[in-house]
């Protein structure tokens, strides 16, 4: 075997954290990690937030964000140790031998400069080629990456193109100077699922065609399985498992890896159709100052103790539906019936029982809880407000609820800032439960969480549904979540419901075009899935 292109040996990375109002704290971000990348191979770095995967990615360019320091071990690039190399050496290799693609291309491009200038900047700076050749190469990369009008694409400013296009432009920027290694840091995470598959395919093809080696960083194992040759699983800055993609996906050795692979495999059998507790009939809505309807004639039903999943991409109107049902945005037309009575469109004129029986849980638990209130106050307030509970009785009931969300003793007097992401979301669930609701609207409640934590929340929600008989209106963009929890599904696209029915019906062909595109774009945890989908799509378009 040749010498590896990149070899990381016993890498240790540390940082000093400065929490406001407290003394500085020393933290170890990465501890004793070794890994190597051969020329032309792709290594996937996978882990949850705080796993140190981005930190390792940047370390391959001997770069530390903020106060991050590479304190131990070696980073060998083509055999020479670049850890602690002088600034001149590092400048010569950054942007030339190793390049970088950031998660948010929208922020990573300079808003004041045209795309072409930025894409060929390093190529000119490092003297790889002259301007005409560099521009020609950029145009050919634009074409290869499937960007529209590749000849004139570079003349545009970053704000003039879409997020998916920017992500591809950034890939072109990374590939332009003909580097040996490209670091992809969550390049598709911020994109909608139907855009993600296109960008993913473009990146994979570009890597393949140019023969460049790559580090591909992501939290989504199904995504990395499509592009990586090898995978390193990280947790808390330490190595969990390292092997070929095939081995990691099909025969994981460590318990943590097995959990990651089997995530979202909750088996949920749909319940039979029943008389609805919530019916939304012909609802149309628009925001003030916007000239089109955000919701168009939406009709859905939800039975007691069941879950209706509302699926769609950003801009589909799914969160607006939640605002209309809660009364935050009064509907322009249509009727909402809840628990046998017609709901007033406007929040202000609803009865206390209407409000109590219809609760809501938010995507960002951080902003859904008042940072100045303790867990006891947050969960206790609905008990006091709706049922007049006070003192010991209230405290006992809060503790019951905490037990119910599997948090137990010792949390009642804590502030939200002292809880983990998953715990915060659990407290929000407890606050909703405290009102003894008949329906809880869950707005992307697992989207901001790491996969294993999200799994825990979904299981909790299912258990609570079985115990309390509460119905969920579950808004999400993630189809794996839908499979895990839904009894009925409504697929939304541009403000309208395009497909609606029981889970089995909605997920079984024949599909309409949009549902087909949406379903087939969700990455699956198996090798060769991406090629399979692309092949089918190519055949279909050839057939038309």
């Amino acid at each position, binding site marked *: 075997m040749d010498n590896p292109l990149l070899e990381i040996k016993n890498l240790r990375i540390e940082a000093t954290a400065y929490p406001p109002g407290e003394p500085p704290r020393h933290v170890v971000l990465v501890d004793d990690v070794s890994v190597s990348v051969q020329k032309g191979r792709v290594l996937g770095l996978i882990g949850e937030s705080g796993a140190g995967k981005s930190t390792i990615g940047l370390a391959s360019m001997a770069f530390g964000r903020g106060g991050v320091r590479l304190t131990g071990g070696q980073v060998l690039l083509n055999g020479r140790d670049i850890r602690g190399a002088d600034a001149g050496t590092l*400048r*010569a290799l950054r942007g030339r031998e190793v390049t*970088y693609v950031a998660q948010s291309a929208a*922020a*990573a491009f*300079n808003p004041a400069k045209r795309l072409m200038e930025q894409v060929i900047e390093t190529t000119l700076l490092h003297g790889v080629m002259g301007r005409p050749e560099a521009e020609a190469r950029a145009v050919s990369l634009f074409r290869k990456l499937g960007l529209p009008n590749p000849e004139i694409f570079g003349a545009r*400013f970053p*704000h*003039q193109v879409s997020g998916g296009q920017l992500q591809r432009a950034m890939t072109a920027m990374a590939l332009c100077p003909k580097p040996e290694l490209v670091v992809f840091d969550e390049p598709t995470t911020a994109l909608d699922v139907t855009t993600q598959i296109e960008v993913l395919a473009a990146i994979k093809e570009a890597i393949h065609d140019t023969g460049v080696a790559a580090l591909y960083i992501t939290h989504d194992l199904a995504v990395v399985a499509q592009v990586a040759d090898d995978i390193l699983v990280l947790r808390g800055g330490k190595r969990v498992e390292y092997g070929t993609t095939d081995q990691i996906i099909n025969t994981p050795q460590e318990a943590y890896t097995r959990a990651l692979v089997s995530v979202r495999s909750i088996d949920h059998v749909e319940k039979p159709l029943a008389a609805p507790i919530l019916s939304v009939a012909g609802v149309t809505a628009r925001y003030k100052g916007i000239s089109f309807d955000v919701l168009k004639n939406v009709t859905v039903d939800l039975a007691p103790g069941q879950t209706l999943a509302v699926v769609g991409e950003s801009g589909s109107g799914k969160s607006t539906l939640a605002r209309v049902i809660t009364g935050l945005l009064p509907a322009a037309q249509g009727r909402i019936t809840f628990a046998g009575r017609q709901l007033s469109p406007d929040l202000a004129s609803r009865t206390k029982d209407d409000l109590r029986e219809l609760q809501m849980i938010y995507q960002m638990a951080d902003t859904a809880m008042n940072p100045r209130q303790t867990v006891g106050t947050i969960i206790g307030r609905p008990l006091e407000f709706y049922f007049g509970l006070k003192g010991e009785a209230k405290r006992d009931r809060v503790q019951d609820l905490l037990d119910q969300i599997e948090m137990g003793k010792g949390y009642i007097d804590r502030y939200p800032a002292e809880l983990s992401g998953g715990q915060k979301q659990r407290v929000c669930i407890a606050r909703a439960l405290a009102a003894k609701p008949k329906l809880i609207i869950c707005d992307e409640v697992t989207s901001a969480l790491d996969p294993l934590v999200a799994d825990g929340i979904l299981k909790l929600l299912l258990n609570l549904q079985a115990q309390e008989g509460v119905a969920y209106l579950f808004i999400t963009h993630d189809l794996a979540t839908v499979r895990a929890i839904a009894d009925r599904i409504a697929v939304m696209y541009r403000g309208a419901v395009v497909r609606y029915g029981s889970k089995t019906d909605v997920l079984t062909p024949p599909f309409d075009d949009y549902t087909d595109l949406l379903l087939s774009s969700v990455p699956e945890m198996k090798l060769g899935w991406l090629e399979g989908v692309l092949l089918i799509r190519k055949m279909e378009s050839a057939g038309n």
Partner: protein
Amino acid sequence: MHPVLILVTQRVALGLLLLLAVSVVIFAGTEALPGDVAQAILGQSATPEALANLRESLGLNQPPLTRYFNWIGGVLTGDLGVALTNGQDIAQAIGQRMGNTIFLAACAAAISVPLAILLGLVAARYNGRWPDKVISGITLSTISLPEFVAGYFVIYLLTQVVPIFQPVAMIFPGMTFWAKLHAVALPVIVLVLVVLAHMMRMTRAAILNVMQSAYIETAELKGLSPMAVIWRHALPNAIAPIISVVVINLAYLVVGVVVVEVVFSYNALGKYLVDHVAKRDLPVVQAVGMIFAAVYIGLNILADVVSIVANPRLRHPK
């Protein structure tokens, strides 16, 4: 029409409207007060004849709206009326003094603007290290000083402890440019001291804000040298906020001038204003107050226009 042009036109039109509203405030500021304006000016011991005369010369016998339109009409045509105290033509009195005020403010701006930007750049470049701490510490102290306090400290230091300057700043027609410069050195130093701190702190904040953007990290990961990162990626984005900061602080300078002129008995617009407040000379105060307000508003409009024009999203719409 280009969106930038539309926005700029809107902003300027809004500014003119604001100026009109401000003229109402300045005019009505003295109208809305309880009691009789003539009595307030002349005091309790005034004779009935004197009161009647004053009412006549202020036009107080006419309805307020008529008086306002007479006044604003005069302002717009350059006729500011005559001073109550000595019957002098106000426009003429202002004309002489305006030049002196502009000279003083321009000297202060010429020194403080480049200095503030330079110090702001240095402080941002060494963010959190000792040059930043020293600069920020000193400016935090000068920010807490009113103009006249800074003024007397400087006078004491530079005329008594190290006697190199005269404590009063007299300039008169016929002086050479260099003699004038020497004469205004002390007030200029004080103005620079007062305005520099704000300007430097805001410049530093504007640069740091840009330096923390993700595209700066992109530039660093491209292997650009620190100077190239600043020059090619930070500056094009920081230039608009910096200009905006500078212009806003020039507006502060306009007000600082008033007090500094009094401290140094510098015969210009600000001192003229304060002297006539003490003498309760209403027409003079209204006229000069309107001029200061107009300059202040004009500079603020300029700052807004700069940031509109410099925004790439507006200049190159989708």
